């Protein structure tokens, strides 16, 4: 990565503080920078509107507003938003629902740091 290269901004959304901590640790020293972390879908939609991150990593199963509802609301604000759904649930039904709603991709937990970084680079958002 060149010295002047801007990092790709990431917003993480997960009701689990543990997962937010792990993802932030995985992205440390990479070309990605976590600029916001939210634990609630509604709050995540508001935050997206304010900061417009390059990538949103969004948990599928959350209390209150679900990941799919949050996904739809963010896409209503910006239809080109790059949103990746993350879940330990990897059923065909769940993946289909997320992708047809407009998620850019779907990542099933657990995943390794290296797999995660490769996956992130594959999203094509790297500057």
């Amino acid at each position: 990565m060149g010295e002047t290269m801007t990092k790709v901004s990431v917003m993480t959304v997960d009701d689990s503080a543990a997962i937010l901590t792990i993802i932030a640790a995985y992205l440390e020293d990479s070309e990605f920078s976590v600029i916001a972390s939210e634990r609630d879908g509604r709050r995540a939609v508001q935050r997206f509107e304010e900061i417009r991150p390059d990538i949103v990593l969004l948990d599928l199963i959350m209390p209150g507003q679900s990941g799919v509802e949050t996904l739809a609301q963010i896409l209503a604000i910006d239809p080109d938003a790059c949103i990746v759904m993350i879940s330990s649930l990897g059923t065909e039904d769940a993946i289909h629902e997320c992708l047809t709603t407009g998620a850019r991709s779907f990542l099933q937990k657990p995943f390794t740091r290296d797999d995660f970084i490769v996956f992130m680079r594959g999203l094509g958002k790297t500057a």
Partner: protein
Amino acid sequence: MATTFFGQYLLAKGVIDREALLDALDRQRQSNLSLPELAVQQGLIDRKRADAIMVQYRLSNQTMESILSEIGGLAPEQVERLQHKQRSSWLRIGAALVEGGHLSEEEFATNFEEYRSMESAADQKIREAMRHLPNAEAVSTCVELTVFHLARVAGRPAKLESVGLEEDVLEDGMHRFSQRIFGDGDYTIAVDLPPVLVASVAKGMLGFDVEAGTETEADAVSEVVNLIGGNACTRIEQFGPLLRPEPPIRSAADTLVSPAGPVVRATVVSADVSFDVRVFAVADEET
């Protein structure tokens, strides 16, 4: 006697005392090094990298060999040499007891034969019990995934001690973490952990020590249960039923998550500690 570890079997039978078992376990700890630990000892990787490898191992389904190669940058021949070294220096509990003078070779041989025979019968009994549970395929998937993930994240061996149907009780001092998965069926996977395992699981999940009783600790364990629930749905879908998880919850002692009536209870023994990990899989047929 139900299934257990050999050291605990000898202790329960009165062949050795507690001090002898602790001494043997201590000998094992000094002798039985993990592959990343051996790699540090041989100067192949530094401590920080070894820690990162262990965290990665606990949080993924990858083999240690592939993580050593991926994160540790070790060549297959180096991994093979480490494995050989590990195998040649590995001290089993019986050998550790003999080495410490707590057990003669003859006592070891006789007791181990009895233990193996008892274990084989106990394993058979558990497999049989699992087959006869209501919703056996789904329930045994939940139980097996729970044992697998908890043992891996906590970094401790664990095995099923018994499986059966009984009234649900959250025992004093245990912490319950649960997750409902529902759709073509309705199940709740509830895991009751003693504080020592709550701490091990939280540490394994996050990679650093977490203060006991904090939200961070509970949150880390809940995430492991979430991993179990989601993976259970994915696995169960392969033989038909479509299920989805709800967010995991941590239950207080007075707010049990189970319905009235008997639930499946699988008791799990973990490592050298006398604490149990209990796994409850609850099938609700009123979906």
